[in-house]
């Protein structure tokens, strides 16, 4: 369980870096960029959660060992 929590923390850290740099690329002005970050971070994390969920379901259905 601890290992899972550590990996989730690593993921959240890297996701933050990806979202910040992606937002800076998308918004040339600082103000709109900072305002957009929380929403983008949430969307990114939820999307990744969705993908992880689909992969787990596929693994369980088609590739269980």
């Amino acid at each position: 369980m601890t290992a899972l929590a550590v990996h989730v923390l690593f993921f959240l850290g890297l996701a933050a870096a990806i979202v910040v740099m992606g937002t800076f690329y998308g918004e040339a002005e600082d103000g709109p960029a900072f305002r957009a970050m929380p929403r983008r971070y949430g969307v990114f994390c939820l999307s990744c959660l969705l993908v992880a969920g689909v992969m787990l379901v596929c693994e369980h259905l088609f590739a269980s060992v």
Partner: protein
Amino acid sequence: MAERPSERRGEPLVAVLLSWVVPGAGHLYIGRPALALCAFLCVEGLFAAGILLTHGRTFEFLDPELRGAMATALTPEVGNLGGLLWQLKRFGFGADEPGPWPPFMLAGAWLTALSGMLNALFLVHVHVAARTPRGHRPGAPHPALLVGLAWLVPGLGHVAQGRIRRGLIVAVLLIGCFALGTWLAEGSNLSRERHFYYWSGQFLLGLPALATELLSGRPRISHELAYGDVGLLYACLAGLLNVLAFLDVHGVAEKRWLAASAAPLVSPAPPVAPAGEVVP
């Protein structure tokens, strides 16, 4: 304001493709022979020095199962396509029997990678220069220079543009990711021989990656790394995310540069006073 095609020195895409294959050829095409010669000598000089030091064996770092026609497409050397293709044709992936590396193998591999990066900056330069009208008076730093600074130290391109807060955030974020990754991987990420593609990613972080590699002394790893893969990912992604910083810097710099091009070359006419008034 966008430039009119008639004001161009040449077709930007043609100039870029020419320079990609032969460094400087694009500058020659747009009528900048001195810069063409400078680009050729600098890029091919670095490349030749790298080949001399490595004996052309850089791609022997690749695992045998990864060697193939497109295996080198994700290396910094791809910025100097002509050199890369020549190296592949002349040396390939080396002999079947691996031998000891030359004494300055790593320094040589850095030089060939640098030649690719330098040519990529010349590509940025020629793409903008081809669209810059003749008689242009620079009113802003050239985009290629700023992208070069952004590569050298993450965030420096933003700072040079006057976007200091953004530059500091980029620097702290990317150098922090790289440092955390290197710590987690216990320095194992700093070897091109060990992690060929991850190294190519972190090469895009510029000086921090080079300095850390130089100072690390190539640590030996004799135990299982608990988070080695996570460290590799953090360090490599720090370099890859710096590409977004390049693009951000380039987008703003190009807009400012071309806006300066579109500005009138003569000062505006003085105001005309209505009849009976005196203009001070």
